[in-house]
């Protein structure tokens, strides 16, 4: 294990140190006193685990391809932007536009998230990007979703579970929501269905891993029922254009 004190360090220098540690083959890297440094884990490959103490800056784990990041506090916007593989665990809340264009890997958030989470997530071949949100989510959850799995739990939350325009522009992938979903909040493309056996397996596999990360019990979460949201029209814009 190696510790890097990030106090007062500009992102360029901090990320250079992290890259060097990963290249040296360090399995666990702890970043102390992080506050606002951008781009931690960007484009990083390998299988290291990086523990971040303090609030990391935007674009955490953008283009990341392998490592695991555990953030001990809240995190900001644009986590897992176009991420390819690996895992990001946020113990607190996180901001807007999470998992934009994410193609693989996992993003586990214990608390609430902001607007446009899971926007334009994609699956590809064997890659199934997965985002699990423990708390609530803002508007445009799963906008343009093209693949992958997006799970919203609403654990111990007080406010509304999810905002408006849920899954607007959705044309692939699956959203699982714990509790009931108001059709009025959904995009025109979205259908609300009950889960079949395959869905149950996907959901349980994802949540088992999620529970492990945060010391939660799967059966507590599963006490409440889930709804499945998928695109029901394959060509929602078919009549938009005159040829």
């Amino acid at each position, binding site marked *: 294990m190696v510790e890097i004190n990030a106090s007062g360090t500009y*992102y*360029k220098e901090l*990320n250079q140190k992290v890259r060097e540690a990963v290249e040296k083959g360090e399995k666990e890297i702890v970043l102390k006193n992080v506050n606002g440094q*951008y*781009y931690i884990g*960007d*484009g990083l*490959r390998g299988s290291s685990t990086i523990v971040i103490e303090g609030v990391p800056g*935007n*674009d955490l784990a*953008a*283009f990341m*391809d392998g490592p695991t990041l555990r953030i001990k506090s809240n995190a900001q*916007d*644009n986590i897992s*932007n*176009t991420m*390819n593989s690996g895992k990001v665990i946020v113990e607190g809340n996180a901001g807007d*536009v999470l998992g*934009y*264009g994410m*193609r693989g890997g996992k993003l586990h958030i214990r608390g609430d998230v902001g607007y*446009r989470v899971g*926007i*334009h997530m*994609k*699956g*590809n*071949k064997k890659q199934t990007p997965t985002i699990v949100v423990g708390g609530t989510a803002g508007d445009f959850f799963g*906008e*343009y979703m*093209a*693949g992958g799995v997006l799970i919203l739990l609403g654990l111990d939350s007080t406010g509304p579970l999810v905002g408006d325009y849920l899954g607007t*522009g959705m*044309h*692939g992938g699956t959203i699982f929501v714990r509790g009931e979903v108001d059709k009025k909040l959904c995009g025109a493309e979205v259908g609300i269905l009950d889960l079949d056996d395959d869905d149950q397996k996907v959901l349980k596999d994802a949540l088992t891993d999620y529970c492990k990360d945060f010391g939660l019990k799967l059966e507590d979460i599963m006490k409440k029922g889930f709804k499945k949201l998928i695109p029901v029209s*394959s*060509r929602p*814009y078919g*009549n*938009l*254009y*005159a*040829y």
Partner: protein
Amino acid sequence: MFKSLAPPEYLATIDREKCIRCKRCIQNCGWGVYSWGGDKILIDTFKCVKCLRCYHYCPEEAIEIKDNPTKFKQNAYWSFNNIRNIKKQAETGGIPLTGMGSDMPYPILFDNLLIDACQVTNPSIDPVREPMELRTYLGKKPSNIKVEKTKDGKLKLSEPMPPQIKLDLPIIFSPMSYGSISLNAQKVLATAAKASGIVMNTGEGGLHEDLFPYKGNIIVQVASGRFGVNPEYLNAGVAVEIKIGQGAKPGIGGHLPGEKIPLEVARTRMIPVGTDAISPAPQHDIYSIEDLRQLIYAIKETTNYKPVSVKIAAVHNVAAIASGVVRAGADIVYIDGFRGGTGAAPSIIRDHLGIPIEHALAAVDDRLRQEGIRNEASIIAAGGIRSSADVAKAIALGADAVGIGTAALITMGCTTCGKCYTGNCSWGITTQRPELTARLDPEVYAERLTNLIRAWSHELKEILGALGINSIESLRGNRERLRGVGLDSFTLDILGVKPAGR
């Protein structure tokens, strides 16, 4: 189904006496205009787009494609297209689409600018037998450099230069994605770029493995759909381009429907076969200029600081936007004028949004100079470059290089018919239908495109020679060597060009 009241634009006709019924027209037409009627070729002229594929492949020269003489009553205000579009919209309730750059008769400023030549007071230079340099480097330049002397008296740079992209002449191939054009068309671009010492741009559709050998001549693009983007992709080329907008459809996204996404396109875009490929209008991690800075540096962190280009459409406030882009850390600003091409755009957008590249380029170059940051980024001007004269004029107005798209496609057979969005291109360019793409032999057409670049290179040298300068950097931003004809004083002021005669 009633017959459309929007009359056909063209009449495909066959001289029945010359026709030998070889059916080559049926094979060649991607639009299904021709069919076999048992004893003769049948014609559905409503489908004809005048791409002339059939004309070129008819061995008897029996085919003629005429503009439909049956027009609506002539009206100086209500054009044929106005009326036709209304009828189509009334029939479908949809948005009429189009391909290519706008063909509307807005003034073409390039055609109102003339280039200087030397007479007596300074000499012209023989460009064929004396040195004439077109080499151009794209990228951020420091305002000044420090040179020190080593112990053995040799010169040495105190600090390394920022990374630069070397071009043998100031032209690049504009971004056109695999998906919007065929893989063979991209191969033509890549091969010709390598042979010509310039670069092509992948567009937003990812990088197909067949193009890996051309990595040194490729800029990879990141757009709102993030197709095919991973760390390997970002590091594959000589630079990364963030596409914010496109001249033909500023502020508008893209949508490649699932049925146009066969296996190879899907693989390259890293999405499942048959799923829609949506490029949202904005990049959803960029809602403000500081967000652009964030993405630029996320890419730089991932690529160990390769140059980052930012492509924007020429819109009203382009000078301020470009200044922000440069201050956000872009090494290259790519400005696409409203005449710029597209695979598919609503015609209402293409024909009515944005501004011409000439105005935009002049305004951006001026603004960056006023702010003392012109060296911070190179400018690529694109959107309707038709000839080496347009290239020279754009460079004199202030561009470091120009992007050409349509001109490159024309070397592959394109006749600017404007129906790219149908996916039926009979020349195998803007289609993924295997029987059509197979027609575009990458080797044959790469040679033609390379020929075009060589020809323009010779022409540029002739222009420089006439101007009495032997290096392209002395033309760059040298508006003193341009004069305007028939331009009002406001326009001249924006262009920073004197009227002819002064």
